[in-house]
């Protein structure tokens, strides 16, 4: 029963109290939305109490807020062990700072007689609650380590469920007592905000951060030049320290994820056997292709005629690619008479390789700039970017016994010899021959 009250009743009571109380105080008593200043009454201890306390509580506040607002980012952050430890350490140090600051503040209230005039009983309640809350937090952080990792899935889930108006306390009901106390006390403190000096957290002078730059008069030109050497040295030093801090911070941030990667870049990858094998296979394949290419080149340098295909393989509508004597791509078709038609496939425009498929009008097309070439004459269609026809290549056809039965010249003329027999064309083989004056690259 008490558990239900602490984790379901109390939260809504607290939220209601904060909303209504804060609204009342902001609208009706707006000049009290602050923490009563006591700096004039006592300032020696104040800076040793107030500064560490506020610094610490800000860090802790941000550390509690970010996982609530940006859970994905937070999860990404704490995934990295180094960041997790850095964050936890920062939180712990901030907690210790809070405790020290609070202790100083409490002692100050007690031992300074002037202060007691402006101290209300509620102030002490607030001090004690805050101190207990921070101590509970520190104990939690110390004994149930890495709250940054477990809290998002449990405490924050509970928190969300409360905010979604379907409170689900299964997340927290079996938690250790310390954590439960931390959560319950948080609701109590929240509830007290509008009725105590804690209300001042709603009047943070945020506009200082965004207001337009204001000219501070004592740094005008004349004064600037009159500044003492010492001041100038101090200023230079301040810039220097800020600079070093910035650059060190940048280097530190970069070392998470970026610099370490660039280190690995030079170290290279250690591959497992399967990957290594796959890579080697790829390289071998490339080498085979290169070897093939070189052997083509050698073949062309040494031979007067080179076999490119069986006559029966050639088709009228789809060309077969081969390499001509100048190591350029070329296409072989079969013409209407059943004889080969060999054309250079290097586009006379800018040297792309012409496509192998013949369209309905007996043309092949270069994909680069859409030049259509007639496959019989090699002449480009009017309007194509080039006017130079594709060359015909010199060839001859041999029967199976090696006799030459037909030949074609670079000018496109074709002739058959007496031995030509269309019935035997299944066995004929097509060769390209070295034409005069052609040099091999």
């Amino acid at each position: 029963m008490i558990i239900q009250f602490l984790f379901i009743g109390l939260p809504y009571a607290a939220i209601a109290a904060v909303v209504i109380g804060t609204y009342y105080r902001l609208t009706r008593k707006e000049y009290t939305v602050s923490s009563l200043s006591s700096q004039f009454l006592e300032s020696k201890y104040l800076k040793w109490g107030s500064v560490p306390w506020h610094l610490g509580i800000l860090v802790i506040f941000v550390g509690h807020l970010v996982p609530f607002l940006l859970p994905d980012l937070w999860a990404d952050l704490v995934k990295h062990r180094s960041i997790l430890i850095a964050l936890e350490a920062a939180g712990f140090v901030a907690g210790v700072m809070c405790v020290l600051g609070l202790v100083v503040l409490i002692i100050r209230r007690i031992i300074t007689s002037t202060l007691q005039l402006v101290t209300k009983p509620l102030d002490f309640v607030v001090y004690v609650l805050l101190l207990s809350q921070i101590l509970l937090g520190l104990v939690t952080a110390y004994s149930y380590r890495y709250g940054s990792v477990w809290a998002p899935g449990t405490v924050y889930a509970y928190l969300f469920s409360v905010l979604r108006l379907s409170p689900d306390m299964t997340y927290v009901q079996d938690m250790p007592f310390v954590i439960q106390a931390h959560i319950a006390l948080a609701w109590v403190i929240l509830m007290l905000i509008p009725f105590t000096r804690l209300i001042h957290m709603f009047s943070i002078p945020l506009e200082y951060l965004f207001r337009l730059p204001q000219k501070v008069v004592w740094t005008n030109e004349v004064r600037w030049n009159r500044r003492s050497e010492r001041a100038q040295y101090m200023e230079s030093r301040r810039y220097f320290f800020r600079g070093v801090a910035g650059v060190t911070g940048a280097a530190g941030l970069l070392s998470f994820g970026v610099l370490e990667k660039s280190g690995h870049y030079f170290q290279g990858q250690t591959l497992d056997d399967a990957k290594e094998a796959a890579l080697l296979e790829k390289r071998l394949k490339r080498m085979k292709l290169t070897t093939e290419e070189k052997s083509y080149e050698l073949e062309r340098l040494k031979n007067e005629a080179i076999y490119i295909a069986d006559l029966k393989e050639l088709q009228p509508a789809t060309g077969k690619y081969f390499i001509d004597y100048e190591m350029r791509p070329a296409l072989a078709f079969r013409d209407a008479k059943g004889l080969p038609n060999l054309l250079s496939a290097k586009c006379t425009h800018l040297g792309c390789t012409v496509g192998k498929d013949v369209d309905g009008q007996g043309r092949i097309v270069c994909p680069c700039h859409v030049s259509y070439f007639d496959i019989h004459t090699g002449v480009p269609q009017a309007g194509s970017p080039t006017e130079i026809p594709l060359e015909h290549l010199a060839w001859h056809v041999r029967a199976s016994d090696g006799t030459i039965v037909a030949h074609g010249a670079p000018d496109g003329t074709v002739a058959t010899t007496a031995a030509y027999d269309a019935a035997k064309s299944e066995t004929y083989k097509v060769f390209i021959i070295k034409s005069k004056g052609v040099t091999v690259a």
Partner: protein
Amino acid sequence: MVRMICLLAFAATMLQAYPEFQKFSQTHSGRTVNCGMCHASPEGPDGLSFGQVGSLDSVQMELLKDARRAQQPGMDVNNPVLNPFGNKLVRVMGVRLLVDAKKDPAMLHFYLKDAGDMDGDGVTDAQEFLDGTNPDNRYHGDPLALFLTNVQHHLFEIVMIFMATGAGMFGLSNLLMAFAAGGEGKKRSNSV
């Protein structure tokens, strides 16, 4: 040898490329697509080069035959003339459906819809087919889709780089200011 040649001829007629899919992907996306989307060789399965029917040894020939028998979906195939995406198609759809789908290539998207994202670039294989991008290359895909996925994926690095750049610029500016202030002080003390 004769058997081999027969087999080659048989394989070539049975296992020709399906340019219908290529044409569909190309017109749908406006990007150039070639046989390399599904085949091991960008020039398609016929031929003598690497990844084409003519280059296969007897072990690979067996694999090819197995793959052709995979009429039904769900068979584990490893066809040497196909690339991983091509093999995945056969695995997901089976040869029969695949051949059927030639009539309406958009169906491929339907069958692949829940078949995942094999290169892990955040764009599903089905979508990559429509986009005309390489489903088996994690650095290839619709630029906008890739950008959005990668931003989500690398949010941590991006935040880090942002803070690091900010801190670095802050530091550098202050160092320069320190340098300038120092230089000025010296200048004055010299002139005094």
